[in-house]
């Protein structure tokens, strides 16, 4: 299996009878995700809502190839991902699926700007001007040369959002992206994300436990 099967784009991601192994044997009432057939399409905007412990982060990890502890199938463009090998996933992570993990996974010892550059240097997707503009809009431009560990959790979240956008992508996976943001910053973040997603013709799959990112016309999915 080669990634060329997905070039130039991953148009759809399909979950077929998928269920996290930890849920096997438990009753799954009214889930729109687990043990069904669900397809995410490029160009759409999805919001996955669920109570804590519903398996949101697990789902995001599955989509990013980070974990495979599920039953059923995950298909990209109709092709089973079980056959994908490490280099294929790395190519997907550089060019097809962008991911903002819940724990942000920033490098605390690197400066804010270096954290972004670390991701951006893989594809040189963004120029410095755009990075600085987004940092300014999100109010963290003055912290550009601060080590990430010295930033507040809210600032770190805004930094991680910009880093997630620093690559070409077909799907943008955001795991509780604005949990530490006030509504003003939530709106600015949503605006930047919407601009970039529109520019790339991509899809957004975001999760929330009650404080969703304020994107327009989201398709709600109850986990």
């Amino acid at each position, binding site marked *: 299996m080669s990634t060329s099967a997905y070039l130039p784009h991953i148009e759809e991601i399909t979950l077929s009878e998928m269920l996290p192994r930890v849920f096997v044997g438990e009753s799954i009432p009214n889930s729109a995700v687990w043990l069904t057939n669900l397809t995410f399409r490029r160009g759409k905007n999805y919001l996955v809502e669920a109570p804590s412990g519903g398996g949101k982060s697990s789902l995001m990890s599955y989509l990013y190839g980070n974990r495979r502890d599920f039953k059923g199938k995950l298909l990209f463009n109709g092709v089973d991902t079980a056959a994908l090998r490490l280099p294929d996933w*790395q190519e997907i*992570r550089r060019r097809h699926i962008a991911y903002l993990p819940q724990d942000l996974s920033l490098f605390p010892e690197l400066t804010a700007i270096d954290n972004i550059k670390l991701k951006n240097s893989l594809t040189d997707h963004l120029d410095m001007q755009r990075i600085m503009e987004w940092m300014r809009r999100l109010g963290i431009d003055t912290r550009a040369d601060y080590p990430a560990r010295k930033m507040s959790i809210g600032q770190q979240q805004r930094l991680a959002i910009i880093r997630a956008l620093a690559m070409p992508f077909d799907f943008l996976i955001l795991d509780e992206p604005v949990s530490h943001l006030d509504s003003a910053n939530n709106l600015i973040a949503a605006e930047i994300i919407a601009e970039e997603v529109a520019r790339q013709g991509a899809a957004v799959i975001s999760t929330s436990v009650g404080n969703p990112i304020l994107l327009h016309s989201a398709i709600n999915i109850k986990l």
Partner: protein
Amino acid sequence: MKYPLVSRLLRRNTSTARIAGFILSNFIGLTIVAGALQFYNDARSLWHEEDSFVRSDYLVVNKKVTSVHTLDLSANDFTPEDIADIEAQPWVRSVGEFKKAAFRVNTHVGFADIERHGRGNPSRSSGTLSTAMFFEAVPDSFLDIPLHEWHWTPESPEVPVVISKDYLALYNFGFAAAAGLPQLSGTTVSGIPLALELTSEDGSKRLTLNGRVAAYSKRFNTILVPETFIDYMNEELTDGQHSADTVAQNPSRLIIDVSSPGDTAIGPWLEQHNLEVAGDKSASSAAYLLKIIVTIVVSIGSVISLLSLFILMLSISLLMEKNRSKLHSLLMLGYNPDDVATPYWNIITISCCGATLMSAAAIAIMRAFYLTPLKALGAEGGTFWTTILTLAIMAALIIGLNFLSVYRRVISTWR
């Protein structure tokens, strides 16, 4: 560097002390191993100096002469069955026969009077010293004399001769001393022209040729000439009868190319088959001792090198364990495992090459000190390639194994 930020990120927590510890222990291990091998190579010729044209793993054997054999001359010869038996031994690579001359030889000191009488005519040499001699030959492949020196054709002006070192000693310390004649060095004798007078067994044919002593041997207790010379003259002086007489061609001595000279099976086997080994055994036992000592030293050096390999592996592993979450995050960003492994590979390569270069320098310095006294003892000295090759192989092994372990560790953090 492809991704400078990645190396900046991962180089943090690098323990200079641990890397220095590796470089030091690696340096010591490499120096001991390569230094010992270098010394062995440099000193080795000391024990083979007398016979430098004969490899040490040759044995010259003959059947033990007993009183019963004295009457039956052919009883000391090796039959084709005997030779096949020896060839079948596992420690034998090949067996060569000593070919005997089927003519008599008389040698004078001086030039043969070929110009006046022409080859093939009996002549008088201008010398006064004269002695009866005999010739033997072994296949050329068993001798390591440069081909142009150990080569004879009917057109050659001189016949190269190898004589036993013992003959020279006999002359110098026995005959010359008693007769009040000057003692002669090997090079002096090599410079003396010899007139060889060859006579067929029945006395009907005579030839006179020039000869020269080309080398001395401790191992060959005989007088050797090139095989082509024996073949040609046996034919020439017996009118071809010699080659027809196969019994006369049975050799009484054999030269054996031994595949493993240290094999303990060789001695008892020869003893059991009533065979004697010619040559100086003290030289070979000294060489054997040198080999044992070098083996021990090389083993110790190898153990130290092995430990240094583990020190490096351990410190890199520790460093990677500390950076485990960073490695995982980098792979999550889409970096390839070799992008992530590169900073560690660089540390390994630089420290290992540093230790290797230091080691090469140390051996070169050591060598400068011991080579002069060693050469004064008569050793020829080997080439520095011994060190270069040993170090290159060991460094490649250490670097290769560490590269592999780093790569596997990176992969292990992927999921």
